[in-house]
């Protein structure tokens, strides 16, 4: 039987030689740099994370990569912005259908320091994210990036798109004003028009046959816990596949295209 062989432990770099006598003393910047490096080294020695970071960040990208390739990351930053502003909105928001929800949003907008700003970021950011996700999807579509071997990543993308829509739908109810109430009534009833399962689906969304006491808290839990968790996991898988498979070259580049002069240099 072959002997079990563990990978060799990462060996720390040799300590730098002491400075020659008379050499200038270390500047604070040098000290800080050294401290930073040794802190990173300390973590890396115990986790080997630098390999993963290098794998993710220093990938080879095809010739012709252009600004359209930033749309995916833009979508991700829109998601992160929604996540962060949403967490802070949750510090003031109350999912109380008897009037507390509306009052808490009014309080955020009118009384809380920067409340209107953070609420506005979340509110407008949701539209920004929907626009960006469609642009990103259009990019991958028109560049043929959905083809083999990236079909699974397209599939994950479709799931993310649906979840983003579900976020918009469940978030719209939360201010609990006339507009969000009636828009949600209409939205739930659209769900209900699906044959056979529709009636049960809308009962599930409303937590019963009528828009009732737990409908709002149900939407709130779906909006801020359930879907964001799933989305974060799926974005992780999406990015893993991007790094694993590499990105596609733009379709106008043919393999036979001669490499342009300036790119050779």
């Amino acid at each position: 039987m072959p002997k079990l062989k563990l990978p060799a432990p990462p060996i720390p770099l040799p300590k730098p030689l002491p400075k020659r006598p008379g050499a200038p003393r270390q500047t604070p910047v040098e000290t800080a740099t050294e401290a930073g490096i040794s802190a990173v080294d300390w973590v890396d020695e115990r986790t080997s994370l630098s390999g993963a970071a290098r794998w993710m960040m220093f990938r080879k990208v095809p010739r012709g990569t252009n600004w359209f390739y930033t749309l995916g990351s833009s979508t991700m930053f829109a998601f992160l912005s929604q996540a962060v502003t949403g967490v802070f909105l949750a510090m003031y928001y109350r999912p109380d259908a008897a009037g507390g929800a509306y009052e808490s949003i009014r309080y955020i907008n009118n009384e809380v320091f920067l409340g209107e700003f953070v609420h506005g970021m979340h509110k407008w950011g949701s539209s920004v994210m929907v626009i960006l996700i469609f642009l990103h999807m259009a990019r991958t579509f028109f560049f043929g990036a959905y083809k083999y071997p990236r079909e699974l990543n397209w599939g994950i993308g479709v799931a993310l798109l649906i979840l983003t829509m579900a976020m918009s739908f469940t978030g719209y109810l939360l201010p609990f004003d006339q507009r969000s109430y009636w828009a949600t009534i209409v939205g739930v009833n659209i769900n209900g028009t699906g044959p056979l399962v529709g009636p049960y689906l809308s009962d599930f969304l409303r937590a019963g046959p009528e828009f009732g006491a737990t409908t709002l808290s149900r939407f709130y839990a779906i909006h801020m816990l359930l879907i964001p968790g799933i989305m974060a996991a799926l974005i992780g898988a999406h990015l893993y596949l991007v790094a694993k498979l590499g990105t596609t070259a733009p379709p106008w580049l043919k393999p036979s295209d001669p490499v342009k002069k300036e790119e050779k240099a």
Partner: protein
Amino acid sequence: MPDRHQTKSKYTTDRRIPGAFEGETVSRRRFMTASAHTAGGVAAMAFVLPSLAFAMGPIFEEQDQPWQDVGSTDEFDTETYVPKTITIASGVGEAGKSTVYMRKYDPQVDVEPKDQYNDFIALSTRCMHLGCPIRFVPAAGRFICPCHGGVYNFRGEVDGGPPVRPLDRFYTRVTSGGRVEVGRRFSVNSEIERFSPRDPGAPLDGIGQYLYPSRPSIRKLPNT
């Protein structure tokens, strides 16, 4: 007694299970792996299933729909509709209230047979397109929906626009003290036959009643 170990096991040899002793149908390693996975699955189901059931419970639970007093019998006539407010969901204050349009049963107008539950007609304001609140316009004698232009006639039947069936109704009854009470909701098809409540957008004529089944959470009164 013949020695069972003399013959080669039909399981181990034929199936070429590596690491299995003769006569074993499964190797010890596989058995341990399977038990560990089963234990993990059971542990996960122990929290996933109750949580799912917890979230889905309201689908199967019948909601309480008590009788509610809306006024005395002399407040309503056959000529026009009187709006009254009832509670359709408790515990949410204003958001749980809804308007019903009330009038007296009129043999000249109404097509459905008279029984103990329709001395007074109570129409729901829920539009049967997608659920916006409709409004009675006395000058037109019709109900108008603000959302997508649904129009209903005096009996609540669709006159135009996207709605798929006549307005929902509520059972009514008269108490011995001469008070009118409004009870459960029911849905109607174009013949004003009573059905268990359906959501807006669900037609009840033809195969509609089977495509959009009634739900355990809300039912009409039995045998009506």
